[in-house]
């Protein structure tokens, strides 16, 4: 993405702006289900007067919506596809910006039959290799979501091609897949936000996390959709959103989200300054 970082126009702190219209934000389920957007968006509307219709879908669909010009701005986590998206000219002139990241965790049954926790507590590639060697049940998202793409990239880096009875391709939502892993006493990879929300109800545990190489990082980016796609795209609102979410104040706000409930922030802001 381009490294441009305009200072966002700080609104006068006197009162709410007049509502001037709405933008459509297509995003992944994790940003919405984690509660992040509910936490930060009122501030955006208050400051700029743009209302936001949040459509939470898979990353794949979010980008399809962008491509079709159905959304004005995207907040997604599938960097490779995002690059391709920009390349093909679906983004506006400014392209894509990093916003924040959280991380993926590999979770598995309490008794950890593949011994991942002992062998590879912070090595995702070793963890996957151990699971495949033991043919321990592994549930894959199997739906081209950002999480699924991340999983596939780890298999690829490990030089493995998972297949067989133990490798369950369940194309369902993240929460469903965590539940399924619990039911089937298998492993899976999940984004931390969803894991924190759903994992408490299960008997699963984190078996591998915080890979030093950053392979388990879950990077979110923001993209304004190319306004030439159709005349209904709200380019002003989209740009205002992009500027706002990249602004120092918002980044700070993102950095505080989740501390109350989980004791630690769910997302780490990392907008390119």
């Amino acid at each position: 993405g381009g490294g441009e970082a305009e200072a966002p126009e700080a609104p006068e702190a006197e009162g709410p702006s007049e509502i001037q219209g709405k933008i459509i934000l297509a995003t992944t389920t994790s940003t919405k289900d984690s509660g992040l957007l509910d936490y930060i968006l009122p501030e955006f509307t208050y400051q700029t007067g743009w209302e936001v219709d949040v459509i939470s879908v898979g990353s794949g669909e979010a980008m399809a919506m962008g491509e079709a010009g159905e959304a004005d701005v995207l907040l997604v986590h599938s960097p490779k596809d995002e690059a391709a998206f920009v390349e093909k000219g679906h983004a506006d002139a400014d392209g894509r910006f990093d916003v924040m990241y959280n991380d993926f965790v590999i979770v598995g049954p309490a008794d950890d039959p593949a011994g991942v926790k002992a062998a590879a507590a912070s090595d995702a590639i070793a963890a996957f290799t151990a699971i495949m060697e033991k043919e321990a049940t592994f549930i894959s998202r199997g739906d081209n979501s950002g999480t699924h793409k991340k999983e596939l990239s780890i298999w690829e880096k490990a030089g493995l091609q998972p297949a067989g009875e133990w490798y369950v391709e369940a194309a369902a939502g993240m929460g469903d897949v965590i539940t399924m892993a619990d039911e089937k006493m298998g492993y899976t990879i999940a984004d931390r936000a969803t894991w924190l929300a759903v994992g408490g109800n299960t008997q699963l545990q984190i078996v591998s996390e915080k890979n030093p190489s950053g392979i388990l990082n879950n990077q979110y980016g923001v993209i304004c959709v190319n306004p030439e796609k159709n005349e209904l795209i709200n380019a002003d609102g989209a740009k205002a959103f992009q500027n706002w979410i990249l602004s120092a104040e918002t980044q700070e706000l993102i950095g505080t989200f989740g501390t109350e409930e989980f004791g630690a922030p769910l997302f780490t802001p990392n907008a390119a300054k």
Partner: protein
Amino acid sequence: MDVISAGIAQAFRLILSGDQEIVGIIGLSLFVSFSSVILSTCLGMPVGILLGTHSFRGKGVVLRIIYTFMSLPPVIAGLTVFLILMRRGPLGYLQLNYTPTAMIIAQICLVTPIIIGLIYNLVREKAPVVNRLGITLGAGRLEIMFLMIREMRIGLTAAVVSGFGRAISEVGAVMIVGGNIKGKTRVMTTYITELKSMGDYSRAIAIGIVLLIIAFVINAILYNFQEREGK
């Protein structure tokens, strides 16, 4: 099971709490489902009655198609309406996607065939008798239609109730065209789905129970009306 009983307890707490957000969600559910059922009834009832009373070439095919559309998956109904209403779509200039109006349109696509099919099936046997009575007493076409409705009101009510059940419990279509936007297009079923995907099963079940209680109250009202009229 604890989850289910917790859900039941929570359902009652929710109802008693009168939480503004929940009230809004329930209100929108009712608004969307009632609107779509009323419009579907206006469309489907005359069509069902006409099919039940008239013969014409190709009627068999029409019926088969209607029965087929009783199997229309909500996701497909939603997707089709979405594609038609989308910005680049033929009706994009109306900017209806992600509004309750779009949700109503999508539900009409689902509910109308059900209402037509059920009414046709109900009317078919009794209609000829009512029809010939109407004719010999000097009723016009429209008057005969009203007579049919009055004579078969119990069965017709049940058909409409089935349509309502379908509309209020359906999630696939309203999720796609509505987008489950908080405070705007979030209805009970999309909220249930969201809660479920967040792993909050007991709250999901609580909302489900609230939905059933509402359906029960509505059915009870219609049923009482039937009781008084029928028998």
